[in-house]
């Protein structure tokens, strides 16, 4: 069965979604990630969706779920690289992904994770989206 690989980078987990995910694959990712966070005691998860051309309500829900479940396991989630067309479409769909922190790219995302894990909430906080 195909799976989306999860990489361990220090105390963080990195997931790069490059395929058009069907629902089953998304559910599997959700499960695998939750497992791995728990197993490795990861402090943060970085999800790179810069190759994802479609994010519909199911995928959106998956991202929100991952963020929520990670938080319960005391890990931060950052989603990076959302494409403009995807962002515009999500907004039109009415999804704002509350509880999901975002960054422009992997570098920015890692910076955000590192600073939020190290006590202070990063350069600016109060982003309650």
């Amino acid at each position, binding site marked *: 069965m195909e799976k989306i690989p999860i990489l361990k980078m220090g105390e963080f987990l990195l997931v790069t979604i490059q395929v*058009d995910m069907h629902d*089953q694959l998304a559910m599997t990712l959700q499960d695998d990630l939750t497992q791995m966070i728990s197993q490795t005691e990861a402090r943060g998860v970085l999800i790179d969706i810069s190759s994802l051309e479609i994010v*519909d*309500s199911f995928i959106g829900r998956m991202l929100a779920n991952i963020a929520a479940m990670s938080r319960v396991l005391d890990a931060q989630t950052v989603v990076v690289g959302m494409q403009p067309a995807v962002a*515009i479409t999500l907004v039109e769909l009415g999804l704002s992904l509350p509880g999901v922190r975002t960054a422009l790219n992997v570098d920015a995302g890692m910076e955000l994770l590192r600073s939020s894990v190290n006590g202070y909430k990063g350069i600016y906080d109060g982003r309650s989206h």
Partner: protein
Amino acid sequence: MTVVATENVAVIAEPDVVAVRRRVREAAIQLGFSLVDQTKVVTAASELARNTIIYGGGGSMLMERLNGPRTGLRLTFKDDGPGISDIDMALRDGFTTGSGLGLGLGGAKRLCSEFDIVSQPGAGTKVTITRWK
């Protein structure tokens, strides 16, 4: 309105959603849609295809390429499922009969230029969306 080409896609099981996305994307590209419009129509199709499978028990999508005087893509999702008793409710965001965020109908409607739904309890559901270029 001239229908230039039609395609019929089975929408029965969950992997078909990906197939629908791919076919709709190809058609949108061929019709010269902008990237944002492509994304909107593919996402709407994804929502409706999933509805057809999960709530409709499986069905089909008819894809029509329209060319004259305007260029556009028209998708019709049909199923012989239980149907929707209160369509207005269903179109309201957050409405759900199953688990999750709801039927996604309201969202799909906002992504399209035209939206039409015919559904009655016990008589299946037919959703037609059109995205003009």
